[in-house]
């Protein structure tokens, strides 16, 4: 097994009560890759993420993070997670942007220790990375959906993770900001060297930005480099989605699929 494997899944299956949600999934993510995880609604993408993070236990198979079985994994500060639910928090919560970002340091700070001035600087630096440092004293509920999303990315970045997992982060963010958002992700991947895994149901856009793609519906249908994915035909996609699908590619670089 290669040393620069960030994540390895080996024949992972998961059942919710009787229903199989994830079946025999094997995949590997290596350092520096930008992985897109795509599939239709209810295809088990979010469940797979929860399995990777140890929030759920697989019914079968093994999961390793940085070479360590997930149930023994301790260095959570190396992993940043931006949840799909991050945007549905209690928007009346009385916290400032800075207070929220600092919670990203909770695993690094240890029991009985308080956040200090250095932690504040780290939080400000993370806010700067996502271009939100001017909003540090704002109440989190006052910001727009796109701004909140950036704050949650800052929270994931503040512990300086090597691996960042994003679960449908562009849901509820308007189209104009989605492009900026991908620009930010590319910068994190190329300049900061952060390995990325992003869940999306927008196949076209993600394949354009990610270096690798995993396409799943309970089980994996495609796993490989994005450019190879382009050869993955419409017939395969239709099979994946269970109904006819056409992938449209436009000159301005945006791809869509429709019924």
């Amino acid at each position, binding site marked *: 097994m290669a040393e620069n494997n960030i994540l390895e899944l080996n024949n992972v299956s998961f059942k919710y009560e009787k229903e199989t949600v994830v079946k025999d999934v094997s995949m590997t993510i290596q350092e520096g890759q930008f992985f897109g995880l795509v599939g239709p609604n209810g295809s088990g993408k979010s469940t797979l993420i929860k399995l990777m993070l140890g929030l759920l236990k697989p019914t079968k198979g093994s999961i390793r993070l940085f070479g360590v079985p997930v149930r023994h994994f301790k260095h959570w500060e190396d*992993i940043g997670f931006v949840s799909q639910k991050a945007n549905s928090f*209690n928007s009346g*919560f009385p916290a400032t942007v800075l*207070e929220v970002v600092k919670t990203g340091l*909770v695993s690094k700070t240890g029991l009985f220790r308080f956040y200090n001035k250095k932690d504040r600087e780290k939080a400000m630096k993370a806010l700067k990375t996502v271009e939100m440092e001017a909003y540090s*004293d704002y*109440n989190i509920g006052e910001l727009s959906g796109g701004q909140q999303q950036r704050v949650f990315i800052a929270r994931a970045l503040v512990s300086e993770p090597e691996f960042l997992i994003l679960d449908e982060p562009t849901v509820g963010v308007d189209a104009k900001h989605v492009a900026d958002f991908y620009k930010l992700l590319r910068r994190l991947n190329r300049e900061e060297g952060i390995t990325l895994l992003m869940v999306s149901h927008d196949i076209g856009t993600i394949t354009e930005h990610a270096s690798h793609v995993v396409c799943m519906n309970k089980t994996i249908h495609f796993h490989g480099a994005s450019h190879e994915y382009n050869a993955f035909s419409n017939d395969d996609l239709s099979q994946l989605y269970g109904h006819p699908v056409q992938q449209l590619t436009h000159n301005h670089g945006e791809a869509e699929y429709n019924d």
Partner: protein
Amino acid sequence: MIESFLTYEFLQNAALAGIMIGFVAPLLGVFIVVRRLSLIADALSHITLTGIAASLLLEKRINAINEWNPVYMGMAFSVAGAVLIEKLRKVYKHYEELAIPIILSGGIGLGVILISLADGFNTDLFSYLFGSVTAVSRSNMLTVFIITILVAAIVLLFYKELFVLSFDEEHASVSGVNGKLIHLMFIVMVALVIASAMQIVGILLVSALMTLPVAAALRIAKSFKQTIGLSIFFGELSVIIGLITSYQLSVPPGGTIVVTAILILIMAITYRKVSTQFSLKGEAL
């Protein structure tokens, strides 16, 4: 007023216990409110009554425990109720709030049977329901002191864990925070504070001291720390003004404390309204 404060030990006990409760009840109240658990305080205060009733009955039947103070039994019931709520929340995963009415009505139902068996419908009971300035003994006051120190220390030491759990439980567990343990610790603290505060504010009104100052603070505060600071300030203000008027007018302190807290809340809501209108006008200019 000051003269009687210096003369009567019971007034000193009530004032000191009141000041400690005015600090610690809103402190926990902030976490209770932001986690939308306000009703848990009600459920736990009602089961405290069951404990008090059980103690009164035992006292009547067994003379040997005459020296017991019912507050301690109330405390034990409240803590047991807190643990039971946590268990029930796991049984009804999709209806977590069901645990609250189960414990609340169960507590009152059992309580009223025990009180009747003890022939306990008297003035004593009235002071448990609405609080009293004379009920706090020196040893009770010291118990409140120990609980206050303990709770303040735990909240300080686990501040960042409590905060992250309140804001985003999923993120907390991804960060390796032991949510279950901290939540259990938290709810046991709530149970202890409710049983302590009950002596001053009364069972029926104890949850108000945990929620009303926080409700007022939420209208004004920008940050979480400010919310905590303002909640404690409003809590202390309510308790101090409430205790003084209670003594002057000879009415139960529960009533005067809660009415003061309500007045503060109204002022906070008005302040917010007026200040937003001003800032809107400012922008228009």
